[in-house]
């Protein structure tokens, strides 16, 4: 029974794939490929070494854009959250920039950085910066006052206060924000690669379509994007499980 419950999601996927395959087989001449030809496309890509190369290219851009955004946005967000006056001064600008889709930046990214990695990294950076900034600001606002008072009571220096109260107190919320933002980064990289570079999973998808309607490769690329996105999410979730990170303000 336990085994069956574990296998249930896999069985469900297998059933869906079977329906998909049967549907395609019943209507020959469809451009949309069935799962078997998608698997064939995936093997093709693997054999030519393209799949690994493109996955690495996409992850490389995400890593840079996401890390740069985190390094800049989190300390600024924590500082703004702490010094409310700074936040009040900057808030209108942030509220205007925030709803602009990172994709709207594509022309400007190409104007500034040309076609290439920098443009893609910049787009990911823009897509991650504002969500992370707001997460960090809100995380500071949500620190229960007792932790701040307790920290003051034990006579901590400002540096100690940041390291021993502020930082551990915001970690759970920051991790959630980082996980969601990494998801955004993974969405943005695909779009960025469709326009501003000639490698990566996003490029694979447009290229496979443009260069001969290879829809098996298009779907193979989509599947890879899904699988890697899931793995990234699992990675971030495993960080959230670390015991000293895992507390939340409702729990205690």
């Amino acid at each position, binding site marked *: 029974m336990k085994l069956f419950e574990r296998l249930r999601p896999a069985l469900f996927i297998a059933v869906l794939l079977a329906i998909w395959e049967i549907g395609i087989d019943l209507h020959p001449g469809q451009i949309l490929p069935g799962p078997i030809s998608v698997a064939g496309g995936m093997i093709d890509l693997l054999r030519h070494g393209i799949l690994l190369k493109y996955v690495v290219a996409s992850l490389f851009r995400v890593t840079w854009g996401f890390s740069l955004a985190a390094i800049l946005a989190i300390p600024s967000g924590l500082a703004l959250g702490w010094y409310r006056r700074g936040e009040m001064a900057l808030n209108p600008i942030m509220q205007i920039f925030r709803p602009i889709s990172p994709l709207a930046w594509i022309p400007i990214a190409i104007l500034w950085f040309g076609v290439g990695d920098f443009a893609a990294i910049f787009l990911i950076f823009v897509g991650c910066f504002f969500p992370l900034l707001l997460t960090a600001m809100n995380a500071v606002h949500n620190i229960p006052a007792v932790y701040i*008072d307790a920290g003051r009571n*034990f006579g901590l220096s400002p540096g100690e206060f940041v390291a021993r109260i502020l930082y551990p107190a915001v970690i759970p919320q920051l991790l959630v924000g980082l996980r969601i933002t990494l998801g955004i980064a993974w969405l943005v990289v695909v779009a960025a690669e469709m326009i501003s570079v000639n490698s990566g999973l996003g490029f694979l998808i447009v290229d496979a379509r443009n260069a001969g309607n290879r829809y098996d490769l298009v779907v193979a690329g989509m599947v890879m994007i899904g699988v890697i996105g899931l793995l990234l999410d699992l990675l971030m979730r495993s960080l959230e499980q670390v015991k000293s990170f895992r507390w939340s303000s409702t729990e205690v």
Partner: protein
Amino acid sequence: MPQTEAEIPGRVPDPIQGTKLRVQHLGMTYDRDGQAMPVLEDINLDVGDGEFICLVGPSGCGKSTLLNAMAGFLSPTSGSVAIDAETVKGPDPRRILVFQERGVFPWLTVEGNIGFGLSKLPRAERERRIAHYVKTVRLEGFENTYPSDLSGGMKQRLQVARALAVNPDILFLDEPFGALDSITRVIMRGELLRIWQTERRTILFVTHDIDEAVQLADRVVVLSSRPARIQQILTIDIAHPRNISSPRYLELRDELLKQIGLAYEI
């Protein structure tokens, strides 16, 4: 098994040995929507070294405000608070405030919490103190447990241990047992008295529980409703351990109930 008071080593409140904390003409006014709201008015209080004081009063009267002002977290609008004849200007590790809820750091284990204020001590001394206070508050076996796995009473004991570990002169406790169930609360009172008798600190304890005040305090300070003034200071002249059905206990409790304006019957 009934025991007579004489069989148990008791502690009669010591004669006050010098003033530890002195509140003079303390006034506190909050600004609410541009309107001045007086909370505390002309509070005068001398607390002796090693004394156990309970602050009681109707809910919302400003007991916690007074405690926070004495602990240095709030600066008074007028008047002053002095500890050892030195004016209080802010919070200080020599006097620790224990909060009603969520006062322990959830990202640290029991040991980490108790050792929080000890980072400047040499390692061996820090570990010795942690071990001592783990024992004092009876959390042996939970050294590496995180607060989310502790009960409410254990968390409050942990908070008291963290406070005691830095060797403060004064403990301020803001309704520390207010969020606990009534059985745990009674047990915690016994524990606190035991710790107070062995550790000898000055304690200021805010409570809204009349029995708690009569069971714990050397003197009970009754505050009036807002703006709060000191309405009466009642000396509880019963030795510990206190028999809570003795005539004197009931008499003092009734006196306190009367002071707060509550009838004897529900």
